[in-house]
């Protein structure tokens, strides 16, 4: 999988049900989204594991604020 942030944002947005995809951008502080929960966090870890072959730890999610932060963590672990 090519490391492309637009693609990453698209895959990230797919983990949400009620949040409008247009609300999800590189600069979005994802933990502040109303729908964010510990369950969605697991879906995000699973998606990144499948799409990018990178297994994030809890602290990777905790320490990231924006989607771009998270994208950079994944990129650094590739």
């Amino acid at each position, binding site marked *: 999988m090519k490391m492309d942030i637009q693609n990453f944002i698209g895959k990230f947005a797919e983990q949400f049900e009620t949040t409008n995809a247009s609300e999800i951008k590189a600069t979005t502080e994802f933990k502040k989204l109303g729908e*964010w*929960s*510990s*369950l969605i*966090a*697991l*879906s995000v*870890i*699973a998606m990144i*594991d*499948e799409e990018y072959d990178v*297994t*994030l*730890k*809890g602290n990777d*999610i905790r320490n990231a604020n924006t989607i771009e932060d998270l994208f950079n963590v994944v990129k650094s672990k590739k």
Partner: protein
Amino acid sequence: MAFLDFKNVRIAGFSAGVPKRVVSNEGDVVRSSNYDAAQFVELTGVRERRYSETLTTSDLCYYAAERLVSDLHWDKQEIDALIFVSQSADYVLPATSCILQDRLGLSKECYCDDSALGCSGWVYGLSHVASLVSAGTIRKALLCCGDAKLRFALDSNYKADPLFGHAGTVTAMEYSEDAERIMCHYGTDGSGFDAVIIPDGGARCPASSESWKIENIDGVPLQRLQTRMNGMDVFSFGISTAPKSVKKLAEHFNFDYLDYDYFLFHQANMKMNAVIEKKLKLDHEKVPYSMPRFGNTSSASIPLTIVTELKGKVENAPTKFIACGFGVGLSWGTVAFKTDKLVVSELVEVSDDEVDKIHVV
């Protein structure tokens, strides 16, 4: 390298006991304010589970053992060992295996021991028993695994974790020179000791009045005597470690794991198990799940899945299984075994009043 290879040990049968009471995961069962019951069920796959406020793990194991010994037509006097694996033992001391020896009426010439592992408990327990039996002097043995009622009385507002169900299982093993080998791989990473933990009640942090105070842990109100779980770390541990352990076992013993008939994974949560199944490229038909109806049942999950999902499918022909347990510790293991003329007892449903009334002080 923690690989083990047992000979002369036959897995003869499986049974499982669960409380009669079914709790459905709907309404206000979820403890977190961040998601609701429907979202919880969608991700974890746990629609309902068995729950009792009175029955202990040993009560459930007792009825499962009576049923299996009867179905196997075993003479209790030939049962020379009993291992009890649980994180919800009847007493801080003595060991619950000693109580089960007496309650089941086993011989006093019986080797009994407890182990405190959780989700990896059955695969570890299997090697305890196999190493005893393979020596040739222990003729028959029972491995009792499960978790149920907690060891601490919590306040009336206590809400049980909707992920976990109660179950007590029994695996019967015996010495047999015709038995197929049992191949095992084990691993441990204690740096993750707090990924799943009950902080208080042990010698490190003894139970005190502070233990009942409610702390907010990632949006969930929890006392220090309740299990707390770092869900994200456990999730990433499970999806990376379980597939690797299966692959390592197959590589070490030089077999193709895809040739096996059934893959039994610890029933952690559906999302995690789906990732593991996909990473190993398994045929979904070969991967049974007891989780939707029974929840995550800790060390009972693998034998419970055989009883509830495979009864009627595995008794009449030789069957090859791979079983992988992983979780609290962090601890994990994978075993490959074959059964022939396996006995699988009907699920035993235990009423709330069928508690041990003898071993009570």
